């Protein structure tokens, strides 16, 4: 399973996205599903930098992926603050623009675009596993 280590800063996001594109192409996802996986990984890495590390240049992001017969499994590891998953809320769309909150979108995107999302904390590391199955549409 190839593992890549990136500095925890926003500039790394484009480089991580290139790896995600290689992985989704290798796995054979269509453009829409591949875009979804790219979004989920981008949001997860942005959250690691912003919330786990509390800012840029405070730690690393480990990215690895594995392709099985029917799944693309992406793993992200960081040694920042332990992640406590919150309740995932669907954005409220029936409110006027001025009252529309734009928070919590990243986490919502991760759960919408991926088929499985697993959080774990082991030996001081947050471990986030994002799984996309073959032939599933985005939710």
């Amino acid at each position: 399973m190839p593992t890549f280590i990136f500095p925890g800063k926003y500039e790394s996001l484009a480089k991580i996205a290139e790896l995600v594109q290689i992985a989704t192409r290798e796995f054979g996802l269509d453009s829409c599903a591949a875009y979804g996986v790219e979004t989920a990984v981008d949001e997860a890495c942005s959250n690691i930098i912003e919330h786990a590390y509390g800012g840029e240049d405070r730690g690393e992001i480990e990215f690895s992926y594995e392709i099985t017969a029917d799944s693309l499994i992406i793993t992200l590891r960081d040694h920042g603050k332990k992640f406590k998953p919150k309740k995932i809320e669907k954005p409220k769309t029936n409110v006027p623009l001025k009252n529309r909150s734009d928070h919590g979108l990243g986490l919502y995107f991760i759960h919408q675009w991926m088929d499985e999302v697993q959080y774990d904390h082991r030996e001081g590391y947050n471990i986030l596993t994002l799984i996309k199955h073959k032939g599933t549409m985005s939710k």
Partner: protein
Amino acid sequence: MEINHTEFKRCDVVKVSGRVDSATAPRLAEKLNEIMDAGRFRIVLDLQDLDFISSAGLRVLIGAQKTCKRYNRGEVVLANVQPNILSALDLAGFTPFFKIFDDTVSAVGNF
């Protein structure tokens, strides 16, 4: 990300290309704020060559829309929205907040 800004008499066209993520979204916000600070609130965002937008970018779009629509002084409209970008806007529940045009000419004509 690249930003090209053209000022017209009736509106401003901002062409955004490449990736809008947490690294680049602040630059997009800065450009849109610069336009709005100049008292110009009719903005066309041409998204023809936008490859990717994360929630950080979508927050910039919705923030600009809130500012432009205040006092009915204008609005942000979108042109040439590619299917993947449209899916992201839709998933965020943001499509009802923006007029979406097939091309820049129609978007400019809206103003």
